[in-house]
């Protein structure tokens, strides 16, 4: 018997897969971007089924609320409509690409099936741990103690990125000087 949480997972998983495929297949990049948004939201929901509510919220704020908005905005600025050359050409190249992806998927699936299919499902968390407050506090504790160095480095990286992005966007020409 499927529990409601299981049902939720199947539903969100299906949504994320369908719209993930949509990102790849839509010929209009705007639709790709909107599909990406829906995928992001459903992935946030999947995080929720795993009791990671804080991460789910952050996923909504950062990915769905900021990063993808940026994508959509840039696409709209470029005024890109239907693309003629959506996919790369070359029978051999595309064949190799598809084959590599298929082999990879097959191997991953086999490996997961061989390793984890017999594993028990998730143990129910103790009542205290399910409380999102506690989980969030744990996350913050390990973020600001064990991983404090990485955290600071990421901060510096963000600063660098901000400066770099501003500099890049101020360049007027392309890669070669306009003639």
């Amino acid at each position: 018997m499927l529990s409601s949480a299981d049902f939720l997972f199947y539903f969100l998983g299906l949504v994320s897969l369908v719209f993930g495929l949509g990102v790849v297949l839509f010929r209009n990049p705007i639709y790709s971007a909107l599909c990406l948004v829906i995928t992001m939201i459903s992935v946030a929901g999947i995080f929720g089924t795993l009791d990671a509510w804080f991460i789910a919220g952050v996923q909504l704020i950062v990915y769905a609320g900021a990063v993808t908005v940026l994508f959509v905005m840039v696409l709209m600025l470029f005024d890109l409509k239907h693309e003629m050359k959506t996919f790369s050409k070359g029978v051999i190249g595309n064949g190799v690409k598809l084959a590599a992806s298929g082999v990879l998927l097959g191997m991953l699936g086999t490996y997961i099936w061989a390793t984890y299919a017999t594993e028990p499902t998730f143990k129910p968390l103790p009542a205290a741990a399910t409380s999102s407050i506690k989980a969030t506090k744990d996350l913050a504790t390990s973020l600001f103690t064990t991983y404090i160095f990485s955290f600071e480095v990421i901060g510096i990286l963000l600063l660098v990125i901000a400066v770099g992005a501003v500099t890049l966007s101020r360049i007027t020409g392309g890669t070669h000087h306009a003639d």
Partner: protein
Amino acid sequence: MPINPEAWKVGLDHYLYLSSLLFIFGMLGVLMRRNVIVILMCIELMLNAVNISFIAFSRYAESTNGQVMVFFVMTIAAAEAAVGLALAVTVFKKFKEVNIRFFEHLKG
């Protein structure tokens, strides 16, 4: 193959299947699409797929380390999107198109 009702109960493996499928979708997009911005979006898709498995393992091992990792991945993804889009804008200003082939002009 007989359908085992127990197999439909959601466990770690289901999350991993989902994660690998999404990852392969993203990879196909990166490999096949021409539009730089779509490629960037597919990279985000791949990162999301990885995040799912991080969170699933974190839940499975009952430790927060996986969530910390996801935190970092999100930060990096945001940064990567910013720089990637800035590059795309630069390329677009020159060629009025954002085809990946234009990055070939970067050589030399």
